[in-house]
């Protein structure tokens, strides 16, 4: 028996995509395997690590806990999209300058999650930044440099 499939039309990084996907395919696997957008990573596959973070209809979600079939009619943005648009150029710059990554596996998820916090317009404390990023695992940096980078961008954007 072939696996059940679903037809979807989804806007990915501003471009309308029509595909037929297996019902069981997760959003992150669809992005990586069908669309070649490999900036979203697959880590734990049960919602703990945050490596698969993408934006769905404007808010960050776990790409491994959302089915591609559920995204019919939705708008998805990945790290490739927000990178190309320049939306997080300052945040990427700060991560680079402060060595807020080593292997980089968690970085796309970190950036998208941090951007959601910064875009809310708040001037977050270091504790609030840590709390907001608590669902994104980094096994290299110890988080200190990541919090430094996010804090510096929050300050810079506050002045701008």
């Amino acid at each position, binding site marked *: 028996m072939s*696996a*059940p499939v*679903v037809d979807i039309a989804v806007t990915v990084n501003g471009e309308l995509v029509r595909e037929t996907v*297996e*019902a*069981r395919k*997760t959003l992150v*696997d669809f992005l990586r395997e069908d669309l070649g957008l490999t900036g979203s990573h697959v880590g734990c*596959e*049960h*919602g703990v690590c*945050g490596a698969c*973070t993408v934006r*769905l209809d404007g*808010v*960050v*979600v*776990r790409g*491994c*806990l*959302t*089915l591609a*079939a*559920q995204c*019919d009619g939705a708008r998805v943005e990945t790290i490739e999209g927000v990178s190309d648009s320049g939306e997080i150029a300052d945040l990427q710059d700060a991560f680079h300058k402060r060595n807020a990554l080593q292997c980089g596996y968690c970085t796309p998820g970190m950036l998208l*999650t941090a951007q*959601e*916090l910064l875009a809310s317009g708040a001037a977050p404390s270091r504790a609030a930044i*840590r*709390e*907001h990023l*608590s*669902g*994104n695992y980094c096994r290299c940096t110890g988080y200190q440099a990541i919090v430094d980078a996010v804090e510096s961008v929050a300050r810079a954007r506050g002045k701008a």
Partner: protein
Amino acid sequence: MKPAAFAYAKARSLDHAIELLGRHDGQARVLAGGQSLIATLNMRLDAPDLLVDINRVAGLDCIARRNGYIEIGALVRHAAAERSDVIRREAPLIARAMPHIGHPAIRNRGTVGGSIALADPAAELPACLLALGGEVEIAGAQGRRTVAADAFFKGLFDTALGSGDVLTAIRVPAAAPATRTGFAEFSRRHGDYALVGLAASATAEGRSLRDVRLAYFGVGATAVRARQAEAALIGTGLDAAVAALEQDLAPEDDVQANAAVKRQLAGVLLRRVAAQLTEQSA
């Protein structure tokens, strides 16, 4: 891991969802936020034939005051509940609990109804519902029914919901000026499931409290009321209430903490939450 194959259907209405569930005789699952369900499927702890997606069913995402109750629709996302002025004002216990539920990306997607329907023994919302003496609205093939929180949670991941039922809303009594609430939990990392947690409500009467409801989570198969501690808190005082937890709670060892640690933490939580309840009285 990847889930085993299943079919997927978008429910057009509540009736359509109930019809689909009925046709698959226990082999279909309701998909709302999916933050626990899809993880379960990915790990192949469950392999249903069909997922019935209720996300497009209209009318299940309202937060409203009705007849002295705050009604929260099953599809209200945790993030929406967290931002809701109605919940902050009139269901403050739920507002206190919200930041402890998962992480921002989980709260953007996960639903209030899903959390109650799953009834994870270490989850925050089932305990809040129990502490508030709330109720659950259920739609099924036989029509609609309402089940009180005290009767809803039956066992480990087991509730009053049948396999053909859809949880449509929860209701909690709207807070009165004398309503007091408290919430605290211990977890290894912010957003993780609790080692032990406590949700509480009470009514202030001068300097004392009445109608105290203490609902612990992470200490058994379901969220549990600590009834002797409730009585002691009203009558004899905090030390007696902490001592009464010995009779009320029967935690077992798990991978996170052993029973003795859980008992100790339960007492610490009661002191913290009791302080929250009385602080508001001052």
